[in-house]
């Protein structure tokens, strides 16, 4: 027979139990390993965009999610740092750039990997296809190879009688040969001679610009790379010095003084990566998350540089611009 005392004890236990269970089941902090290689650095605009995306989804760094940075000093060190990232047993690895994504993929087939700031994931062999990435890796693409021809065409519309264009690229980047090929194909279609110039450092950029100016090149295309993005100021100065209209792939270029830039809206790309992290942390498998491509593109014209170069931008291009820098 249940006596009063037993009943009170039982009731008290029942009431206390759920609270106790809740405390035990409190959400464990998610651990993210952020893998990158110099010149991509933790704290740069890419990681800031990514963090902003996480914040918008309700994650607070330190409280809900812990981010550990694995920043390799050079691309060659990526393999070691990727191994370290995997050894730290994170919940997710976030790989910034093509090389980091490839390095991470080599080290693990179990830990989910989310990539961003990658121009062509299928061509680089990171995923088997955009809609079915396969395996443990997925992310957002920049589709840069596809835009190569468009950038050349925009230059042609801006620079009267364009027939000789120099293309700066870093040969060691896996994406470079493809993008160069795309530009050369576009050049053939538009009857513009394309002259590739390899430049791996600010010094090589300087000598490169001097060389092409002497050869009588009329305009310059910068094939996107982290080295160039980190040296946009210098590139803008050189372009102005040698009076060469230049086009870059990110709006950072125009903000720093490069004549024009055409490319996907980057902030969307970085913030979207946070959405992938969110989905995977909530249980979706990476192979069920297709790789997304950008839908919004920014065409930025630096009017100050235009005036300095003595170029009048025709109205039909002014209409197309999404942003002007004065």
């Amino acid at each position, binding site marked *: 027979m249940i006596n009063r005392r037993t009943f009170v004890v039982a009731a008290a236990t029942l009431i206390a139990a759920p609270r106790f269970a809740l405390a035990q089941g409190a959400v464990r902090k998610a651990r993210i390993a952020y893998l990158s290689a110099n010149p991509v650095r933790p704290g740069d605009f890419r990681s800031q965009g990514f963090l902003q995306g996480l914040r918008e989804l309700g994650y607070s760094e330190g409280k809900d999610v812990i981010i550990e940075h694995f920043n390799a000093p050079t691309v060659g060190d990526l393999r070691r740092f990727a191994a370290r990232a995997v050894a730290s047993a994170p919940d997710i690895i976030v790989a910034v750039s093509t090389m980091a994504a490839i390095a991470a993929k080599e080290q693990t087939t179990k830990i989910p990997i989310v990539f961003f700031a990658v121009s062509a994931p299928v061509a680089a062999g990171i995923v088997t296809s955009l809609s079915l990435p396969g395996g443990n890796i997925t992310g957002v693409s920049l589709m840069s190879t596809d835009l190569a021809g*468009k950038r*050349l*065409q925009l230059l042609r519309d801006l620079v009267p009688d364009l027939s000789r264009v120099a293309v700066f690229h870093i040969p060691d980047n896996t994406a470079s040969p493809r993008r160069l090929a795309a530009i050369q194909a576009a050049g053939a279609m*538009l009857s513009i001679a394309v002259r590739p110039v390899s430049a791996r450092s600010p010094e090589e950029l300087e000598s490169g610009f001097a060389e092409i100016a002497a050869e009588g090149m009329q305009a310059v295309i910068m094939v996107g790379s982290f080295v160039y993005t980190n040296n946009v100021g210098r590139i803008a100065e050189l372009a102005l010095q040698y009076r060469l209209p230049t086009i870059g792939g990110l709006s950072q270029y125009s903000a720093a003084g490069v004549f024009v830039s055409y490319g996907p809206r980057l902030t969307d790309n970085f913030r979207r990566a946070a959405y992938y992290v969110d989905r995977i942390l909530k249980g*979706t498998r990476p192979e069920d998350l297709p*790789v997304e491509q950008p*839908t919004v593109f920014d065409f930025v014209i630096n009017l100050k540089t235009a005036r300095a170069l003595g170029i009048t931008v025709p109205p039909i291009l002014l209409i*197309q611009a999404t942003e002007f820098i004065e």
Partner: protein
Amino acid sequence: MTEAAAEEVASKPARAPRGRLFRRYALWFALLIAGALLVSGAIEVYFSYQEHKQALVRIQQEKAAGAAALVSQFIKEIEAQVGWSLHSAFVPGEAGAEQRRLDFIRLLRQVPAVTELSYLDGDGREQLRVSRLSIDMEGSQADLSQEPKFVQARESGLYLSPVYFHKESEPHLTMALAGAGRSPGVTAAEVNLKFIWDLVSQMQVGEAGRAYLVDADDRLIAHPDISLVLRKIDLSDLPHVRAARAAAIMGVPVAAGQELTRDPEGREVLSAHASIASLGWIVFVDLPVNEAFGPVIASLERTAAIVLLGIAFAVVIGLALGRRMTGPIRLLREGAARIGAAT
């Protein structure tokens, strides 16, 4: 009966009634009341369930119709914009070509969903192509006179292609409009349907409900979870999709009883739909059953609680009334027995 026996009977206190008679009466009272409660409760719950379900389906149908209208509007607006760009055909020569190029570029700027615009002249030769991603082409003279976009646009004024997946992952469609006049040119636009995803994913359907869109081949083209769309999932084997498609083809509403089904994510849902006739697309609005029938289940629980209480009450009443009724009867019986024994 002798006076003594009657006094004896009268003076005997009415003992706590036990025995078959009492039990039988108590039982009958309890059964009667409980039975009435149960029957009324069951009828109530059944009708409440049906009415609730009908009301929900009606609400969802309206939501679906609303979504269908939004999608239809989205496509029509692009049609209107493309239609305006056809007017440059009336400006002759070089000026006309310049005007057209300006119109196309403005359109691309204003309508992010359009990724490419091209103009085919009266003979089906491409004269201008303006693209967000590829190189613009002027005067390529490519012969596209056999393409469906040219042929069908000339035939009926407007052509909307089946949904195709660009680079295997992005849903697009081609829209083509023919100008006015004897041998008009045709403007074709490539439309990225990811923008319809925006429209559809922002629809609020209860807490966990979903609105989604399938094309004429029953492939998913818009869903709040875009990853399902990018995987080009074929929904034609889901029963409610089949039923909706059949109904849409015949132009009749779906027969009742099709509403409870499984959605593309595998959950049990209550589903309603609306079709967009001009495109052959269908919008579905699903609500998970536990959310949909939450109120009904709550009402069921309430009714069950009331019925149980009622039964308990009925038992108590049965006991009380039984005692009241059987007490005097028993006394009478005993009295009669004594009388019988005394004589």
